[in-house]
């Protein structure tokens, strides 16, 4: 029934803007979310947080839009480009082809796309080294596990998400070599991002098979995994945004992917006039990824663990540890 209803209204809500004349004073960027939706407590919410910070600091509002399906990407981009938005920020790997098509048609409009690489003179591409952040949370999982079995739950099975898994595994194995890994992916289509029910089922099954910590890189679906951890009395690791507060004491830590920072910086730069096209990579060294430590999980991370993590972080930044990558994670179009 949910599926039917979702499809029913899927097209609904394409976004359009009535932009007034553009001036430095009323700079109005546009933020386009991915399928998961604005308040997913994860990837898209991080983007919103960044844009919101921009709004608070500069007093310039922004327009945003949540697509219901991947067909809407291109339609939404076109609508905003036609109305001469000052900057269009599209977050999510799904936007790659859509941004390429639309940016080629509108060479005078600036686009910033996150998680994809588009080689056009009016597109800024921002990607992250998710494997480096995942390495650190993998270490935390390995230091914390009692059953010596840890799980990984990916959203959509694509190279980009495999990259999280790769870093997680390498980080865990860096701490100890006697671990068992269990991994699952929610699905192969974008709806996998938005299926917390299925994610919870999979997480439950991983816990039943002996895992006591699961790292889910699945956007809003990951909330199902956190719920499963809560229900079964195990631990979960959040992703993208700081999800420690979702279930204090249950969320061991979160792998931060600072989409908020990327969105904020892109908007700020465009407003100040030094926005430039090209490809930026944000890794540990650039503060683009990290693990979350706050009052909700302070009790779970000991000082000894923290010291080891800081050591590894320094080694990654210095290049002493090279975290493996997955080919094709950020393909150019």
């Amino acid at each position, binding site marked *: 029934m949910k599926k039917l209803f979702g499809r029913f209204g899927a097209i609904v809500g394409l976004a359009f803007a009535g932009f007034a004349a553009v001036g430095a004073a009323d700079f109005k960027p546009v933020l386009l979310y991915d399928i998961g939706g604005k308040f997913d407590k994860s990837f898209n919410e991080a983007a919103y947080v960044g844009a919101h910070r921009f709004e608070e600091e500069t007093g310039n509002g922004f*327009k945003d839009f949540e697509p219901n399906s991947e067909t809407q990407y291109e339609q939404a981009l076109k609508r905003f480009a036609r109305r001469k938005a000052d900057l269009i920020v599209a977050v999510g790997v799904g936007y790659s082809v859509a941004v390429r098509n639309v940016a080629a048609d509108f060479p005078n409009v600036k686009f910033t796309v996150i998680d994809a690489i588009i080689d056009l003179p009016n597109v800024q591409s921002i990607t992250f080294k998710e494997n480096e952040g995942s390495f650190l949370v993998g270490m935390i999982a390995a230091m914390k596990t009692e059953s010596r079995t840890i799980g990984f739950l990916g959203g959509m099975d694509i190279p980009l998400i495999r990259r999280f898994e790769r870093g997680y595994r390498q980080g865990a194995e860096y701490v100890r070599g006697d671990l068992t890994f269990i991994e699952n992916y929610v699905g192969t289509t974008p709806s996998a991002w938005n299926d917390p029910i299925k994610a919870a089922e999979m997480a439950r099954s991983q816990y039943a098979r002996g895992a006591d910590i699961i790292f889910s890189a699945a956007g809003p679906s990951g909330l199902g995994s956190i719920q499963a951890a809560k229900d079964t009395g195990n631990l979960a690791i959040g992703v993208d945004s700081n999800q420690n507060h979702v279930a204090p004491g249950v969320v061991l830590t979160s792998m931060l992917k600072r989409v908020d920072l990327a969105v904020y910086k892109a908007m700020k730069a465009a407003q100040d006039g030094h926005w430039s096209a090209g490809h930026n990579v944000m890794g540990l060294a650039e503060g683009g990824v990290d693990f979350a430590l706050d009052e909700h999980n302070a009790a779970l991370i000991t000082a000894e663990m923290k010291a080891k993590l800081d050591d590894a972080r320094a080694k990654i930044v210095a290049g002493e540890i090279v975290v493996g990558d997955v080919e094709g994670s950020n393909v150019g179009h």
Partner: protein
Amino acid sequence: MASQRKLPFWADAILLPGLNLLAAFLVSGLVIWGLGEDPFEALSLMIDGAFGFEEGVGYSLYYATNFVFTGLAVSVAYHAGLFNIGGEGQAMLGGLGLTLAVFLIGDASPVFAVLLAIVGAATFGAAWAFVPAYLQAKRGSHVVITTIMFNFIASALLAYLLVGPLQRPGGQMPESADFPDGASLMHLQDLFEVIGFSYESGPLNLSALIALLCAFAVWFMLWRSRFGYELRVVGQNHDAARFAGISVTRMTVIAMMISGALAGMMGLNELLGEQHRLLGNFTLGYGFVGIAVAFMGRNHPVGIVLAAMLFGALYQGGAELAFEMPNIQRDYIVLIQGLVILFAGAMEHLFRDPVEALFRRVGQRRAA
């Protein structure tokens, strides 16, 4: 059928849908008011978004084109007494057929590829409807059950192909490579330019005209041909049809295949007209909304075209609303559209019975 006779044509075709729509908007208005927004402002935003400017009109008609195809599909089957809920799956397969045709000969001859794509869309859609039709006709498996299950099979098949053999090289999303250059339907603004006046660019394309041609063809077939007469007889009464020497089995299968072909052609608008590549779930529920369109249009091609335009405007206007009023999230737009479908389709008798009673009373008074 007899109950429809109680109302004059205008009341059945205009008054009742109008009342249903009004009720739906009233309830939606209450929801919007409950959210702390002004319902009248929301309504004016929707109307303005759908009809207020050239581009908006283009989008409204673009969405309407999809609904004409799926609405016609539902109505052809309905006239044969069949309830085809499989428009969604048939449209997906139609899109697949279209894509295969384009990739097969798109490089050699784009024009010929477009023609083959139209045939491919219709053929694949018809073929996907054939199986449930055959099962219904020969084995008595109810077509409602089988068509709805075939939607899931189609969706899974498409997802498999798009993350497998048909996936764009190097891509991560379930989508195919771009269609070869030129293998697409002309946008109407380009056509307008050829004949000498300009129109703001939008997604509206030649398939809108194809949809109108289909509507005319369906009308002609149903009401001006012997075949259509037979089809409607089967829909009214199987026994009478059999007694008159019409093969119910044959008509069931043919009606469903025509229905599937019409649904399959929806891809012309979405894929060949606008997206220029096959996407995982490009059908977006149009197949299901086609049911509401067909019923609101009283299963007549003219009514379907009008109802499709209403739904097209609702989609486009709803989109505008989602953008302009941040308090109204996408889910509320779905709610408003759902209410229109609910009132126009499921709760049709809410107003039909009182209106009929009113007309009877007025009629009696006049007679006396």
